């Protein structure tokens, strides 16, 4: 009888390990440790793939990310500038930009972009390699596919998503201000839009907290790593039939999107809820 709780715990542990979450967590653990194993800590081949991954995920996605950021920043600031004066809070434009763009929209938009672009590409690339026995070929050459493919993809995606998110935030803020200035010149009645640039920046800076900065850096890194892991997991877990590649890719993208929203909720719970609680008298 005394062994019953231990058995139940063992069963729960096995179920978690066998679940999708458990398998992706295992892949993460294997990927995190593999850089310290193998013939050289920084194999040239792995480094090459890392650079390619950063280029594909970050550099090649930069133009579309900047375009989106410009539009998003403009829309956000116009919406805020037109809605907020109705509530008598036109001075909070900087805070709105920090809260809406830096904390939420920028990491989320970049994560969705990475999931759709790099997540699908990674899953289908690895899936095609698996189906074409290229992964087996790596094994027969004594090459660890996790170290050779997943590790550079994970690291590259994390770095690229962070850089892309910072670029996105910068362009969104600048774009927002430019759109505001343009609208202010056309519609002088929108007083909230008539802000000198440095005042706008000052308002933003005063609204920025350490938690915001932490979110600005941590969220994109977590999202980037998550997209890479889920995409690699689905690519590598395919069988031998080519028809599985699009199915695996679809599963990877959908799960990336769901995971991003869930993790965003967890971030909100960790960072925003305590702030709200502190405001309660």
């Amino acid at each position, binding site marked *: 009888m005394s062994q019953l709780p231990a058995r139940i715990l063992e069963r729960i542990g096995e179920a978690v390990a066998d679940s999708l979450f458990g398998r992706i967590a295992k892949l993460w653990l294997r990927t995190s440790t593999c850089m310290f194993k193998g013939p050289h800590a920084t194999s040239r081949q792995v480094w090459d793939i890392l650079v390619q991954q950063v280029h594909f995920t970050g550099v090649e996605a930069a133009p579309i990310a900047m375009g989106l950021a410009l539009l998003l920043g403009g829309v956000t600031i116009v919406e805020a500038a037109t809605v907020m004066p109705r509530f008598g809070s036109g001075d909070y434009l900087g805070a709105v930009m920090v809260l809406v763009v830096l904390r939420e929209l920028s990491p989320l938009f970049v994560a969705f972009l990475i999931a759709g672009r790099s997540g699908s590409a990674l899953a289908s690339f690895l899936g095609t390699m698996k189906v074409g*026995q290229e992964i087996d070929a790596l*094994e*027969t050459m004594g090459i660890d596919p996790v170290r050779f493919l997943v590790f550079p993809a994970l690291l590259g995606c994390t770095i690229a998503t962070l850089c892309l998110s910072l670029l996105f935030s910068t362009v969104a803020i600048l774009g927002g201000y430019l759109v505001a200035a343009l609208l202010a010149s056309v519609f002088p009645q929108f007083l909230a839009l008539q802000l000198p640039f440095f005042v706008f920046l000052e308002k933003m800076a005063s609204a920025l907290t350490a938690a915001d900065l932490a979110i600005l850096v941590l969220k994109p890194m977590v999202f980037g790593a998550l997209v890479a892991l889920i995409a690699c997991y689905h690519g590598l877990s395919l069988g031998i039939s080519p028809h599985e590649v699009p199915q695996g890719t679809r599963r990877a993208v959908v799960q990336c999107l769901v995971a991003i929203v869930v993790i965003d909720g967890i971030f909100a719970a960790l960072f925003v809820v305590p702030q709200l609680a502190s405001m309660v008298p």
Partner: protein
Amino acid sequence: MTAPQEWLCEARGLSFGWKAGDILLEDINLTVAPGAFLIITGESGRGKSTLLRLLAGLERPWGDPLEKVFFFGEDIWEVRPERLRQLRRQTGFVFQNSALLSNMTITQNIAVPLRYHTTLSDREIADRCRFWIDRLLLTGHEDKRPALLSLGMQRRAAVARAMAMEPRLLFMDEPLSGLDARNVETMLSLIANLRALQDVAIVMVSHDLQPANLLGGLVSLLLDHHLRPPRTLTDLLRSEDPRERDLIRSQAGFKESRNES
């Protein structure tokens, strides 16, 4: 558990099936000595390629503790994964579909194991790639991606990649299938050169007996899920088991007159 060091590869009591209760291979025993040339043949769909994958450690046997595969005397399912990868540096595998990395050129493909495993300089790696490109008659195609090459060239590029680390043991899965007569001839002469110059042991799965006809070596038949002991073609043709004689005569590339003479 260890096996005698003189065997490059040894399999003991391997059984395998893709589903529970389905028997594809049963109680397979095999040894490969240095410099050996062994051809495994049998009817299509009887598990020849699966056996090669088992020998190379790409598939696991059913899990009976007595089922073992040894590389150079070490049990590949008992050693740590890092040790298995070290052992695999001394082996090569040529897949039937070549399995070249499709996003890389032929030179880059050949360089993959060298760049991953060795501390050779870029110049030395380029020289080594050039050596194998020339030897495998791929000159002029080194900067092409695999999809732009013919099947025969892809197969030769896969041999070049497998040989780049100068392995002691080479597994080849149907290296002649799908090739025209001229490419078969080229591939056979290249295999003969590899054996002569590199002293590499070869375990080849083939339904084509031309390699045995032209290059000698021993032939093992896969019959009724079991692997028969390796023998020369001449011995197999004189076998008391009529099914063995029939199977040999039914294989492509078999030239009876040459072997019976």
